């Protein structure tokens, strides 16, 4: 099942840092996303105000979540759909299996869904003899490779076209081995042809939902490929997997969120396909599913409500934070070891897995603040990461050496006279030791620093001791 390796973050990160293919792939994608968002924001004068409104809509909904969930459920039922409530990932798996069994499903087509990753739906289906086919191109590629997504909206961002070609050749063995398959257009064509067949073969289609609308009982998906649409229009059964906090009150509220979603994610003003689905097909409809099921997943969200992490429930899964995060851009998504990478993963994963399991993630941040700067719903991500660090500190989960070092520093910092005495001497000693070159290539206790950098030597006497001795700067002129 979806096992987390977040405990091994450091080792995972080291491995990914050494991966030159990954480095090339990330370098290629980075400017694309950040440049795209910047352009989109610049082209919409109302963008900042829309971010504020999106934040307010999510806050309002979260603060009245139970009301909106019940209102939503009522509407879904009115239009002939069925709402299921899943407390845990296992509950979600059981419900999906039950529905699939009820129509004797042999194959399930999947639109991209991070909730399905969180609940390890594919593994469960395969274990029960049901073929799960990822239809999103990026998800399809990583499914062939037996990998997990490395980004919440661009699952295969870590791969080069060479790696995609290699996977296609290895798996599409019924095709001519001498065919030309190097360039992205030929790769796309091949995927399109293969998946086309599969669209008509599944009894069940599973999608996620970017939004659920209480007003109408609708679910909304946002794609560029159209795969989520084909996955839900052709099969007999459409299952929507959504966590509780996906809900918004009205279609107008959904419009506001949609306006900031694609712009923040890829820089598009609107994705190619934004689809509002309401219930099963109507009488007289020539296509569409006969059954419409929505599985509402809790899996830790209701616990985050009312806590100091409540803001995280505003997340609309755009991926802007990881696109702009220098840590994510260095190690890629797999280093995070579970479903959700980057800054949002660093806040969410400890909430869903526990801080002792996922504690590394909120620590592996320099708090540069770029994530918060670009978050369309203004989640204070560094602050929330700091809250996790506070919890770890209180639970004594932080590594011993760091704790001792910081404790020592705080001890002196709270005692200015002692601090000045100790540092006055120490800096002079270090300055003398480093006088020849002005820096240290190695120094006891400074291994973390000097592994990769020289350590500049102190100048000598501290500022405060010099000031106390009466030293003052020469006067000059400023205007």
């Amino acid at each position: 099942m979806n096992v987390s390796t977040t405990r091994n973050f450091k080792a995972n990160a080291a491995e990914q840092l050494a991966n030159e293919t990954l480095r090339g792939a990330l370098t290629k994608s980075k400017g694309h996303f950040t440049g795209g968002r910047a352009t989109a924001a610049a082209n919409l004068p109302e963008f900042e105000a829309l971010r504020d409104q999106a934040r307010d809509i999510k806050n309002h909904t979260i603060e009245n979540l139970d009301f909106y969930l019940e209102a939503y459920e009522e509407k879904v039922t009115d239009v002939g759909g069925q709402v299921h409530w899943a407390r845990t990932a296992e509950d979600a798996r059981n419900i999906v299996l039950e529905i699939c069994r009820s129509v004797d499903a042999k194959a399930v087509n999947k639109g991209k869904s991070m909730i399905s990753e969180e609940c390890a739906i594919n593994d469960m289906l395969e274990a029960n003899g049901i073929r799960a086919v990822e239809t999103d191109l990026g998800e399809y590629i990583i499914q062939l490779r037996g990998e997990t997504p490395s980004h919440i909206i661009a699952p295969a961002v870590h791969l080069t076209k060479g790696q995609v070609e290699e996977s296609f050749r290895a798996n599409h063995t019924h095709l001519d081995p001498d065919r030309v398959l190097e360039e992205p257009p030929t790769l796309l064509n091949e995927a399109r042809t293969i998946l086309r067949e599969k669209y008509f073969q599944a009894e069940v289609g599973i999608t996620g939902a970017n939004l659920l609308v209480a007003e109408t009982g609708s679910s909304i998906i946002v794609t560029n490929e159209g795969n989520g649409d084909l996955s839900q229009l052709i099969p007999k059964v459409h299952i929507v997997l959504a966590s509780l906090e996906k809900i918004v009150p009205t279609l107008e509220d959904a419009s506001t969120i949609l306006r900031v979603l694609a712009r923040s994610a890829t820089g598009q003003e609107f994705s190619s396909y934004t689809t509002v689905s309401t219930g099963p097909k109507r009488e007289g409809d020539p296509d569409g599913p006969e059954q419409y099921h929505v599985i509402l997943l809790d899996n830790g969200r209701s616990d985050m409500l009312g806590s100091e992490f409540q803001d995280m429930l505003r997340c609309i899964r755009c991926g802007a934070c990881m696109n702009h995060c220098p840590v994510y851009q260095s190690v890629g998504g797999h280093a995070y070891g579970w479903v959700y990478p980057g800054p949002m993963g660093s806040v969410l994963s400890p909430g869903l897995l526990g801080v002792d399991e996922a504690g590394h993630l909120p620590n592996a941040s320099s708090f540069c603040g770029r994530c918060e700067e670009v978050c369309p719903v203004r989640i204070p991500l560094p602050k929330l990461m700091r809250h996790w660090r506070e919890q770890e500190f209180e639970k004594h989960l932080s590594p011993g050496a760091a704790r001792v070092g910081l404790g020592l520093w705080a001890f002196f910092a709270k005692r200015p006279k002692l601090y000045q005495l100790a540092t006055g001497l120490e800096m002079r000693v270090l300055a003398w030791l480093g006088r020849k070159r002005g820096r240290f290539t190695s120094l006891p206790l400074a291994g973390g620093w000097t592994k990769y950098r020289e350590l500049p030597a102190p100048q000598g006497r501290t500022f405060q001791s010099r000031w106390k001795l009466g030293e003052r700067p020469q006067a000059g002129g400023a205007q």
Partner: protein
Amino acid sequence: MSASDRNTILYSVRRSLGRSGPVDDGTAAKLRARIAGHARNIVPARTDLDDAGLVDLFQTMAEKVFATVERVSDMSEVPGAVGDYLRRENLPAQVVMAPDETLDAAPWSDNALMDIRRGTPVEADQVSVTSAPVAVAETGTLAMFSGPAHPSTLNFIPETHVVVLPASRVVKAYEDVFDAVRAQMGDAESGRNGLPPRTVNFITGPSRSGDIEQTLLLGAHGPRRLHIVIVEDGEQDAPQNG
């Protein structure tokens, strides 16, 4: 079982929000009113244009996302325009077409060479022709409503999708589409029986993917080509179902 899961989840949500039960009646009434009022939030000012301006904006935005757009004066020119387009693109003059009233009004029989089947597409269909009930100038977005006269699969299965759009159906923003949906729901004659369409597809350009090295490629699963024929004098009515 699901019923107790439901109660457990709602209980957990309420407890976290500091309540022992549902919101009080006053709050519930306010929240219901908020839903019923479906007030608009900010709508970008770029849509503050007159009708002609909106059509121009629609075209500009649609072309930016690689839809192709042409304009004809009235419905009588549509079959010829579609036929010419297919020829230009080296596509067979063989289409599957939505069985809707808007398209009924065009003289397709004028173009004897075009093979037209009205209905639902199959895998072998290469070209679909539909109308659009409404289009959004803000981002060059078409809005399609599923129904007996418009199978949604027409929007996705064939590689080429041709859309006939009367100019009067171009509206400013997504909110206007939703008002059109609500109007149909409230209209006894619409055949909607008080329900929204099962599927509302907002379509902005052809299908695409950037999943392979961020290279933008058209035609990932949905259509590779989206061709929009704007009919200047298509009709005088407000947006309606095709």
